[in-house]
């Protein structure tokens, strides 16, 4: 397996034997795609990762913590969006005068659903991508 992300330890065990020759035209392609049907073949990068893979208590806690944080982040962002989007039909029902207020010449509710919803979605997505990346970097630091 080619790791372009960080240097491999020099003393790592030899990797699983490469797959038998096939009739593909592109040997590089196969070199990049290891024959990994099972997880026994996962190559731990170092001791901390080994711990996770061997499901020691410490490793399990680390992974559990990462999954929990990511899930909590996902649920928070989803909730922020759903409350607003699913709130809009209720607003339409309960406050018809308010949602018909003109903004830029269009009723507020039309503007919200035909225009504003898209930049809002995008902002939430940007926040999620940067935060989840941060969590992953923190996890990587801890494991290293």
């Amino acid at each position, binding site marked *: 397996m080619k*790791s372009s992300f960080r240097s491999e330890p020099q003393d790592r065990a030899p990797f699983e034997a490469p797959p038998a020759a096939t009739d593909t035209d592109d040997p590089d392609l196969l070199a990049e*795609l290891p024959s990994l049907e099972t997880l026994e073949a996962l190559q731990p990068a170092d001791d901390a990762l080994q711990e996770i*893979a061997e499901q020691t208590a410490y490793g399990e806690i680390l992974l559990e913590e990462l999954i929990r944080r990511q899930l909590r982040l996902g649920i928070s962002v989803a909730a922020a969006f759903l409350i607003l989007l699913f709130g809009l039909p*209720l607003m339409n029902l309960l406050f018809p005068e308010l949602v018909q207020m003109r903004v830029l*010449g269009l009723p507020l509710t039309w503007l919200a*659903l035909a225009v504003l919803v*898209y*930049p809002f979605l995008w902002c939430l997505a940007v926040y999620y*991508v940067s935060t989840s990346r941060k969590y*992953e970097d923190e996890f990587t630091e801890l494991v290293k």
Partner: protein
Amino acid sequence: MQVHWIALVAFAGIALATIAVGIYATRVARTTHDVYIASRAVGPVLNASAISGEYLSAASFLGIAGMVMSFGYDVLWYPAGYAAGYLFLLLFIAAPLRRFGAYTIPDFAEGRFGSPTFRRIAMCFVLLIGIFYMLPQMKGAGVAVQTIAGLPYWVGVVVVGSVITLNVALGGMKGITFVQAFQFWVKAFAISVPAFVLLAVFGSYSAHWEWATSSPPPALQAAIEAGAPGSAWGQPFGPLAERQGQPLLFTYSLMIATVFGTAGLPHILVRFYTNRDGHTARQTTLVVLAMIGLFYLFPPILGLLGRVHAPDLYLSGRTDALLLELPGRLPDRLLGELLRAVTAAGAFAAFMSTTSGLLVAVAGALAHDLYARTLHPRADLRERLRAFRFAALLAGAVAMAISLGIERFHINMLVGWAFAIAASAFFPLLVLGIWWRRLTVVGAAAGTLVGGGLASAAILYTMWAGDPLLPATTWSTLLAQPAIWTIPVSFGTMVLGSLLTPHRVPPDVNLKMLRLHVPETLGLRTDYIGE
């Protein structure tokens, strides 16, 4: 019917360009990996263009503008829900699915639980969704060719169907990645330019709003008196929702079906495998959200313009073809014909890119999940390539044959049905499979079967026994848009089934979770598909 030559030339031009790229792609697509997954050499922007190109179908390109014109405000929930689906895909599915290394959803089903039987169940739903989704595209092609060339409905279906089938059979995933990315930009251009030109010629967005609702021009006034929707058009719970027994319930069930359906569409999820790693999968989704968000600003504008400038379409019942008719209403005939050529090219790009993506997914399910993983596991690369090409031809022919019989259905409704199955069968499976380690194969399979089965049954009932002319009741709304109850039932079945069979939790579940969630920066990476 009048023949619009410029538009017909644009139409033929897109078809020929697609065939040309397809032929070129046969030289590029040499290996199984090229055909199935484009060798994962696809960057986020190109991949996002291809996903957006694949996703923005005939229903989005022609259907939404036409439905906004027909029904007004309530239709805006469709594009908002379609776009929001990608947020949920991003939050709960994109990166882990990529990290797991599964190519198809059936791969995930088998890989996560080690159950070949579950792969077959998932494969059946992939095929069902693929066929359901392909039909509206083929129908859109028939309608467009009818409008543009005055040829019979079946000509468009057969011509577009054959070009795409051939293209996919020859080029596979790698070939269509470039075609779909190109077709996204064709569509983005084709929907934004006419909107800008028409607004520049006729007046502003808000001026059209006034004309469409409070001060209709004489032609629209006449159409309203002849039965077109009146001022309720611009209001929530207007002509679309008020025909339902419970307008609020209808609105929510529509939203749930579009949002969670998008997040479970197999032909979109297949494309995430072409990302380099989990983080790239997230960035791709981010770019997709920007692209389709920009795109969806325009169909409501065009629907509004259509209501003001082409109200005769209400009376002829041809609002589906609004985008192709609207440019002809410009005072300048040449400009009108040129814009019609642009929208025709966009429409054609829409059926081609979506149908080709679906064909790749369906042919992939048949060739990868059925042939290579189940029937003939020892098949070599050459045999698997042959199987993929044969599966593409077979699926294309079947879809064309069915499409000829569905002329009378509204195209967006058909897409809604495919979405309900994706939302009820696959979304719960993916979310619980990725985030809940106590999920067992018994619970997951039961939930997939129950959710997908109930959604399919409700939809088939609406197709054959429901009468769209009868006033809708709460029950008929729940059957026509079943996702609002089938998703909770599916989740519930999965949780209950898993809690009842705790001994069936996969023994290697911790490794599966590790594979799903550990970032690639640790240098730990694996792919489910080996050779």
